């Protein structure tokens, strides 16, 4: 029985990047629980400026070694939107195929290397070398399959090559695709075994309903694109993501947080399955049924199961895409959709393994990047993760400290946080106040958004509720701004009446 405990898990292992969990228990009551990202900041949004558009695409994949295809694709979609480039169907099919490779590799890595050890009671999969050789071999096989699929389509898994604006500068080898297809079909058995493995693991029966956000497409499972969809408020064009996604900064973490309708929302495999359940093919549906995953599912631990389902989906749909490609015949795209840089702005939204990913860029007429805004799945999930921790931890306070520690770790890991992705992390001294970070305003450049009044705006953020409300301000006072009026707006969350923002006029 623990009545007093100060749990601090420093540099949580088996996640991507650096994160700490802090939980303070006093008198048998949970006082505080936090997940902090302590990754060193990398300033992508700063140094992408002035870069030519092809360098932007090149650098974009460097945001994350595990979701490089997603980042590259999001950047390409944004660039192609900005320059009004239409890519061929073949290119779209190939990009989708690359996504299946990446999603599969990411899910397999997470499920087998990061999650499974929790449930098998070992520190790492490598420790199973003796005991579960078959499991290890299967994990390796699936991972290799996913990597090879990426290699076939985009040269390599980490930092794809030749995945360019306008299309691919090389011709894919039909024989290679055919070999991949055979291997994918063979891999179905491994997927079934994976389903069996995760079916056998007992997940905590914790539930908390939240807002599920993902892309949604009428006919295709939406990794590569679709409308933006929230389980609370329905569809939205991806270009309008700023109307809904509101990013803010918490003092204990170097990654940004985000909110939508509720104070927090969830993205990722579970959200995708919840929002696109009808699009699962027979093989993926079979997996979902065997895992007992029914939409809507409110158990965040089931994110792992959703990942298994998506792994099945990747294998299933990759085969279909290869069939489609071979049927059409893979052709040289010698006349790649020509990219003529022009002054413009574009948004690219895709589903990265961990959830919805937005890239937005503005370019000048030479195709040089004027500004960049990147919204990363893990950042969007952090708020929801903390709320889950807050609602999950009180049920654990009677347990041994090590048990609490492990349980909290397992919950965090279920989210598969990918912290290296945190493109615009900030480093704050421990400070009671919460700070909102300047986002991008429609039509204005970043520079303009940093008017002297901004300081005033930040300083006025709410110290009480811990929630920034710039999102609210942006939405509410947008029209007033045009009138050039200055307006004082109070925090709508805490209602203390003391915190307010002076919204600058134009």
């Amino acid at each position, binding site marked *: 029985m623990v009545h007093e405990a100060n749990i601090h898990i420093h540099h949580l*292992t088996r996640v991507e990047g650096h994160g700490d969990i802090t939980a303070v228990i006093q008198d048998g009551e949970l006082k505080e629980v936090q997940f902090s990202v302590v990754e*060193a*900041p990398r300033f992508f949004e700063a140094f992408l400026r002035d870069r030519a558009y092809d360098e932007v695409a090149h650098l974009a994949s460097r945001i994350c070694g*595990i979701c490089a295809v997603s980042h590259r694709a999001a950047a390409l979609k944004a660039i192609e939107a900005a320059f009004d480039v239409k890519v061929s169907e073949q290119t779209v099919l190939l990009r989708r195929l690359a996504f299946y490779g990446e999603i599969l590799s990411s899910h397999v890595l997470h499920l087998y290397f990061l999650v499974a050890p929790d449930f098998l009671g070992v520190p*790492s999969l490598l420790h199973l070398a003796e005991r579960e050789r078959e499991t290890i071999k299967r994990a*390796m096989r699936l991972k290799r399959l996913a990597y090879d699929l990426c290699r076939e389509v985009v040269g390599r898994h980490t930092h794809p090559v030749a995945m360019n604006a306008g299309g691919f500068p090389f011709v894919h080898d039909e024989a290679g695709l055919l070999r991949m297809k055979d291997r994918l079909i063979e891999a179905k058995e491994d997927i079934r075994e994976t389903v069996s493995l995760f079916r056998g693991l007992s997940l905590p029966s914790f539930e908390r309903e939240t807002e599920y956000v993902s892309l949604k497409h009428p006919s295709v499972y939406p990794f590569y694109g679709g409308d933006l969809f929230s389980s609370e408020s329905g569809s939205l064009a991806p270009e309008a993501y700023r109307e809904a996604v509101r990013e803010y900064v918490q003092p204990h973490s170097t990654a940004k947080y985000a909110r939508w309708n509720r104070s927090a929302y969830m993205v990722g495999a579970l959200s995708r399955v919840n929002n696109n359940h009808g699009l699962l093919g027979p093989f993926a549906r079979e997996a979902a049924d065997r895992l007992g995953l029914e939409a809507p599912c409110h158990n965040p631990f089931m994110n792992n199961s959703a990942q298994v389902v998506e792994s099945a989906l990747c294998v299933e749909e990759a085969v279909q895409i290869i069939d489609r490609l071979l049927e059409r015949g893979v052709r040289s795209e010698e006349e790649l959709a020509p990219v003529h840089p022009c002054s413009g702005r574009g948004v690219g939204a895709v589903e990265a393994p961990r959830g919805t990913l937005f890239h937005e860029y503005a370019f000048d007429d030479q195709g040089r990047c004027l500004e960049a805004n990147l919204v990363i799945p893990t950042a969007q999930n952090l708020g929801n993760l903390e709320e889950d921790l807050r609602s999950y931890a009180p049920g654990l306070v009677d347990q041994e400290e090590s048990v609490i520690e492990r349980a909290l770790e397992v919950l965090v890991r279920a989210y598969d946080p990918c912290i290296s992705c945190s493109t615009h992390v900030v*480093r704050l001294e421990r400070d009671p106040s919460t700070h909102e970070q*300047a986002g991008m305003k429609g039509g204005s450049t970043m520079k303009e958004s940093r008017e002297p009044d901004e300081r005033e705006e930040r300083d006025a953020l709410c110290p009480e509720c811990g929630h920034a409300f710039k999102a609210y301000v942006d939405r509410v006072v947008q029209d007033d701004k045009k009138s050039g009026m200055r307006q004082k707006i109070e925090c709508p969350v805490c209602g203390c009446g003391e915190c307010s923002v002076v919204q600058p006029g134009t």
Partner: protein
Amino acid sequence: MKKEKPRIAFFDFACCEGCQLTVLQLEEKLLDLLDHVEVAAWRVAISGGSDAYDIAFCEGSISNREDEERLHRIRETAGTVVSLGTCASIGCHNALKNQWTGGEVLELVYGGEAGRFETLPARPVASVVPVDYQILGCPASLPEIEIVLKRILTGQPHPLPNNPVCVECKRNDNLCVLEKGVMCLGPVTRCGCDAICTSYGDACQGCRGLVDEPNLEAAVRVLTENHRHAIMDAVARGLRVDRERIRTWFSLYNGPDLQLEQEKTGHGP
């Protein structure tokens, strides 16, 4: 001769962790590796971890004080320090922000709040502590990781490959991408990647840094004047191809190197 197995550890700093993921791609060979080493710490793959290790692989650039201290501790512990990947070896794109001072970059990103934050110019591992082995590449190439691992375990040095990418590109029987209208930094970039980008018809962006004694003056002239197809292509798309553009392009991975080269030769792009 059989002694205790050396203990190996992986650490990451500001990076995308892609290089460590590449190490994971050793797959079955990981088990071979485990015949020769013990893994003391590898946060991406293993819970727990030990502070006693002999060989430390460091991925990423050093861009804040905490990381700097962590790296110093690693250097004190490990007999062998390896900088894994371009971020760790030459600074990579992390160093792009160094073109501004710390204050400026913060100003750029955080405006009036700049005073609240701290950032140091991103530096390669070797600029902070002495490094025994360097592995280049964004991400590091798996065959090279293997070679370096073997060299470490057999006590051999690993000199940085000093041929330009063109050598490997040609060995792969590729048509020069320049002939296809793609501007390429391959001729001045270190090889070791098996010319993967150009083999897929893409441009080399110089992720492995400059070769020794690169002819930068020629590179700029070639890229701005001589390039039959590539320049025609760019011009057809309404782009200016000038020194400024090439200089920016070179700095993608070579910011720190370029400065050195400029100091050494008195001219750079």
